[in-house]
């Protein structure tokens, strides 16, 4: 089967999940995307992206305990799998290879 690369949003969400580490659920992941990458992403979009990543076994999720400040609703905590880390590194390598030499003045870049 043909390999499907991560989209930019999928890669960002994957990296934000890695950066948050433990207790990575919707709100801290969306905050990380905003604070670090300057990208304002709606929570529903974060979850839709995480669902796609989970479908590809790049992240796994588990339900936490329901808490009163969340109206008795449980958190869904995400964890990047080993396959997810490999996929993020592969994307990084692909981007690095594409960037290599691009910034050299002789290539006509500003």
């Amino acid at each position, binding site marked *: 089967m043909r390999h499907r690369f991560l989209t930019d949003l999928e890669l960002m969400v994957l990296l934000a999940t890695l950066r948050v580490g433990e207790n990575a659920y919707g709100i801290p992941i969306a905050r990380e995307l905003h604070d670090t990458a300057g990208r304002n992403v*709606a929570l529903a979009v974060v979850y839709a992206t995480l669902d796609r990543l989970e479908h590809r076994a790049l992240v796994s999720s588990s339900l936490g305990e329901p808490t009163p400040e969340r109206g008795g*609703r449980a*958190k869904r905590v995400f964890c990047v799998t080993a396959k997810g880390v490999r996929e993020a590194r592969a994307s990084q390598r692909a981007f690095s290879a594409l960037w290599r030499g691009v910034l050299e003045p002789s290539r006509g870049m500003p």
Partner: protein
Amino acid sequence: MTRKAPRAAAALLDLLGPQHEALAGDLLEGYRSGRSKAWYWREALTAIVVASFEDIRAHKVLAARSVVVGWSALLLFFLVAGDFLSRQILGGWVLDQLIVAFGSHPFVMLWATTLRFLPAGCIGFLISGWLVGRLHSSHPAAMLTAFSGSVVTLFAFSSEIVALIGGPRAIPYPLRSVFFMELSFFWHAGFMAVPAFILLGGWWGSSTSPVARVAERL
């Protein structure tokens, strides 16, 4: 004191949004940690739209069926009753009474040229939305989005379509009636009115019923 989420937004999310406990909890947590009502509304509406598109992607055949059902209901209504209501009753008998009572008052002119199309349009969009909601009660938001999206798209490109096929006469009745009377009226009256009436009808019709359950299995 614990802040309560905006009631209408929470109800809308509960009714049309994803059945996603974690997302609903996150929204409440964000709101209680100081986010604004506008933030909650924006997040809730985004959740409904995103869930609808994900649902459409996962149920393409059902989405196509909802578009066919919605348009069939819409056209059937205008074929059987809509045009009669707009032309014969509201544009005939009611208009005659208004002229007798108010003469050439600007309201009578407005009634004659545009307002008489409003009730048939409202009823047509409500009925088609109701039927789509009724027959797709397991995914009402997604299927209503698919149908109302098709209406709005056709609506937005109606003048291009007419130009392409060579004028209004080439369009079969009752599609012509929908295009040139109802949709053109709603275009001027408010673009959002069309999906709003479809969604309203769909919300009304989407409560689970035995008929709807049988239709879902087909």
